[in-house]
């Protein structure tokens, strides 16, 4: 229950985490000419480079592959950076935490919100490509993808809170997670199509991040929606929320001692 009270309280204090996130981004791109548009530009270069090479290696249609990459990379970057940054977020906020009483969850909200803003910069490339390349897109499919994105945000919050808790106590966790994320990148259908997995299809089900990518991109790109992915994700979500709530309630008062 403590977790849910604090969660609601953190939601109400949206001004706090939104200003922290806003200045995180402003600071990062201070004095640069393009500012936050560097995010968009960097993503464009990345998918162009990968798109040109891999479309030839896999013998794929370049434009279609670019479209596929642009949405996958935007989602993947959002998930990976939220999870990895949240590991360090409490440690970095030491000066703030030692000065007054804080709701610790605010810092995970900050990380997710910051990466959501970055995601919105990245997804512009996909939107522009999709206007040209996607022939038929129904409103229902678009809505499904947007709703899944909202679910992804809700999913990331407890996961990020969990990571911030564990890494504040056990500092090796960040190193482990950055390796795990790298591995998951190659196991997820980001560069390749999921059909290539064939008998390794089970790899999708043990990897909630891959399921999210598919659940968001398939309705728009290939007019498909897999209900069983959603069921799996709901199970993962319930598990992570309960586990985080349990750990948070148990160790909330110890967090400052770990900093």
């Amino acid at each position, binding site marked *: 229950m403590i977790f849910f009270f604090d969660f609601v309280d953190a939601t109400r*204090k949206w*001004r*706090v985490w*939104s*200003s*922290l996130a*806003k*200045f995180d981004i*402003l*600071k990062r791109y*201070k004095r640069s000419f393009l500012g936050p548009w560097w995010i968009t530009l960097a993503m464009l270069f990345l998918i162009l480079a990968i798109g040109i090479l891999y479309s030839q290696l896999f013998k794929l249609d370049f434009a279609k592959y670019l479209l596929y990459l642009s949405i996958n990379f935007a989602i993947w970057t959002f998930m990976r950076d939220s999870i990895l940054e949240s590991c360090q977020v409490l440690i970095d906020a030491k*000066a*703030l*935490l*030692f*000065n*007054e*009483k*804080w709701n610790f969850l605010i810092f995970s909200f900050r990380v997710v919100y910051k990466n959501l803003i970055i995601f919105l910069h990245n997804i512009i490339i996909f939107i522009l490509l999709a206007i040209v390349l996607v022939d038929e897109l129904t409103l229902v499919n678009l809505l499904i993808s947007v709703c899944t994105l909202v679910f992804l945000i809700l999913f990331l919050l407890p996961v990020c809170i969990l990571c911030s808790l564990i890494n504040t106590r056990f500092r090796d966790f960040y190193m482990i997670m950055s390796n795990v994320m790298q591995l998951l990148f190659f196991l997820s259908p980001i560069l390749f199509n999921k059909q290539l997995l064939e008998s390794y299809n089970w790899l999708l089900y043990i990897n909630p991040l891959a399921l999210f990518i598919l659940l968001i991109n398939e309705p728009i790109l290939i007019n498909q929606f897999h209900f069983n992915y959603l069921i799996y994700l709901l199970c993962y979500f319930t598990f992570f929320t309960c586990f985080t709530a349990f750990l948070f309630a148990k160790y909330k*008062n110890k967090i*400052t*001692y*770990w900093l």
Partner: protein
Amino acid sequence: MNKIELNGVSVLYPVFENPKARSLKNVLAKRIIGGNIYEENSKNYIRALDDVTLDIKSGDRYAITGPNGSGKSTFLRLVAGCMEPTHGLINRVGKISSLLNLSMGLDGDLTGLENIELRGGLYNFTKKEIKKFEEDVLEFSELEHFAHIPVYQYSSGMSLRLAFGMSTYVAPEILVIDEIISVGDLDFEKKSKKRIEDLMNRTNILLLASHSKQIREDYCNKQINFNKGKIEILKI
């Protein structure tokens, strides 16, 4: 009615870095600094507060004294709500504000105005309230002409003025201060002294750590002296 009640409160800091308690460093540290290094279930702890029981009521103005490492800062953090005790109970009633670290969240890369906006956000202010906050702080700190310059290009006196102006804006019911009364040059010192006096007069409970006898006598009516985590109440 604002109050703070501590009942048998102890704080034990775990020591993560050094699993072997018997190193020469620890033995020496134990002799030289006030805090007790303490072992329980083969884990190392520093005992910063030791079984403190205290009732602080509305109208109390406590001066906090004691040598380095005697538990003053831990006590202030505990009262401010930054941390919970490892043993015992603490009950805080009232809106608490603390001036423990004046430059909290002051970001060198951001301009003065951006820093004020960020701090306003941390106070959960609305847009309108932030506007008022900006005007007040800039006027008080006399930094109107420097509002759009990044703080790392401020002189140290200027950034202290800004930090001081921001930290003393909200009037709390319980005020916790760690050794900061005035900042800046002679003219500004008067101004900042007046501002903090106003703030202290508006609060119901004041806890002020200070090594200066003059300051303690001017602002406080009771004194808590810390020694190796234990307290002793003195009259002023």
